């Protein structure tokens, strides 16, 4: 595990945030219909603590977005709300412009085409890489169908393809439990791909990775972003810069700043939040 990556996660390097570019922030502009993800005025609190406070966020089809923010900014909770794990107290959450996500639970949302990678890599350790991907493949989801299911040629082809994309071909029959941390992260991304989602929510994909792995992951995500909408939550500023996409900075459950990485890192509010304390 790379210590540098961890160190980078701490936003204590002001030089990263130079070259500011001012852009409008606040309420999302644009219409619900044009978006793949649409959150407006969302709030949620746990035992009086407001984890998300009047959050508005929107993602266009095919867009990749990086979300940054200090610990407790509400990044993971936002993902929980989108994927149906947490119900917002108020506010609107729409997928594809017209599907109200607050009315659906996790499996339903997942089958609609929202895939999620957890902060802590979560794969099926009792299975091989191959089985992990096979289970993730879109298609059979009902219990009874799965009883009689045999793998099709098409499925086989997709698995091979994903294995190549995620550079795991040589580990195909290895138990997931014996993968390295980085390999597990990739496998999980691979499982996301196998789901054929429209949107990928990726939570800290490079945490604990070596520099080489981090770079590789950035490349992988850029690849994916060509055909999918992606939200990446990350602490690692270097990685976010590598991605080269629009950045949203969350703080105390709402959007603090939004724009290019240079713009956001130059935003005095952001600097205040990261360094002010």
């Amino acid at each position, binding site marked *: 595990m790379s210590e540098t990556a961890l160190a980078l996660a701490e936003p204590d390097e002001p030089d990263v945030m130079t070259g500011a570019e001012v852009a409008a922030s606040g309420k999302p502009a644009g219409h619900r219909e044009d978006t793949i993800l649409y959150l407006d005025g969302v709030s949620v609190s746990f035992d009086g603590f407001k984890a998300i406070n009047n959050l508005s966020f929107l993602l266009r089809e095919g867009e990749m977005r990086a979300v940054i923010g200090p610990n407790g900014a509400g990044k993971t909770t936002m993902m929980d709300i989108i994927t149906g794990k947490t119900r917002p107290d108020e506010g609107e959450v729409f997928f594809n412009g017209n599907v109200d996500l607050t009315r659906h639970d996790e499996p339903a949302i997942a089958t609609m085409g929202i895939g999620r990678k957890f902060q802590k890599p979560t794969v*099926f350790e*009792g*299975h091989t890489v191959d089985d992990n991907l096979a*289970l993730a493949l879109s298609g*059979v989801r009902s219990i009874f169908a799965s*009883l009689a299911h045999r793998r099709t040629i098409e499925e086989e082809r997709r698995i091979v393809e994903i294995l190549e994309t995620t550079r795991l071909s040589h580990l195909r029959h290895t138990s997931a439990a014996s993968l390295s941390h980085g390999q597990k992260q990739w496998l999980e991304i691979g499982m996301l791909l196998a789901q054929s989602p429209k949107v990928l929510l990726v939570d800290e994909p490079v945490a604990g990775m070596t520099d080489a792995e981090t770079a590789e992951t950035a490349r992988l995500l850029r690849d994916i972003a060509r055909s999918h909408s992606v939200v990446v939550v990350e602490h690692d500023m270097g990685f976010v810069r590598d991605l080269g996409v629009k950045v949203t900075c969350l703080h105390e459950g709402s959007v603090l700043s939004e724009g290019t990485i240079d713009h956001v890192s130059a935003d005095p509010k952001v600097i205040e939040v990261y360094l002010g304390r």
Partner: protein
Amino acid sequence: MITGYFLRQGLNRWIIASLVVILAIGILVPAANLLLPAGHPLHVPSYIVALFGKYLCYALLALSLDLVWGYVGILSLGHGAFFALGGYAMGMYLMRQIGTRGVYGDPTLPDFMVFLNWKELPWFWSGFDQFWFAAIMVMLAPGLLAFVFGWFAFRSRVTGVYLSIITQAMTYALMLAFFRNDMGFGGNNGLTDFKDILGYSIQSDQTRAALFLSSAVALALGVLLVGALGASRYGKLMVAVRDAEDRTRFLGYRPEFVKLFAFTASAVMAGIAGALYVPQVGIINPGEFAPANSIEIVIWTAVGGRGTIIGPIIGAILVNAGKSAFTGLFPEYWLFALGALFIAVTLFLPKGIVGTAMHGWDALQRLRAARRHEEGRHDGPAASQPEAAE
């Protein structure tokens, strides 16, 4: 057709081997009891037939627990309840078969109702004079209970220790309920004094042999079922739910249904085990619902090795054979031996006897494979059998 399905699921040779062994025992033991004369060195006394018949039922019960615990990771501390319900359904049929041969000679009412002055048969006893009805109830009663219980518990995402404890509460509540004489199940004495099953005397060696064989067949079917389930995509899903429930949910699966199916199927298996057990031991009483009994099932499974198919079978037979032997050999000290066995197995064989053996076997295979530089070769034996997870 069915065989074809199972074969397509790719049963591995371990399962086939155990099937052969179980069926061979199922045929040879009763045969040695019936056909060989009493003095013959290979003659199996009826006592052993009854004893092993009981073990086979316990093995099926342990296997059913393994399906939910080993594969899906649900530690049920209430599996004894399903076993007992199946047993009661069979017991009720056997009671109705007594007919006028009860001590009071009442044609419909079982003895315990007669001396408690009950005038007519309670509604839930009707239908049990028919074997087919009882056979359905053997599966339906535990299955339904498991389905309803699971439906609520799994949908509310009750997991881990909480789930274990409420399954324990379930069996405890049922025990208290069945102890009540007002329930109409014979209270503490339960159901006993059975005469015959399907017209054959329950005490004859032939009937006992048939019951023994049926138990062996039921166990073999259980092995087949668990093996087939384990090898199917559903089986992989069960293990996936066990290892990372949230992941399956975010992949679009509904783990509650995965669990519900396994739980219900397992309860039905346990019910069948109970139904076969009752005519062989001749009594069913609320003690079978006791939480301690359910814990014992867990222990058999763990001793043998959970998450493996033959593990729970070996565990159930070994622990119970040990119990039978110790209670006769060292009546005052057998609990020490039993207690020590449980401690030793957990400490030294965390994967159970079979799990550990397989682990060793795997390691051996891998070693050989490595020597031959055959990379990526899929080693067969334990692949379709999930490793015991923590």
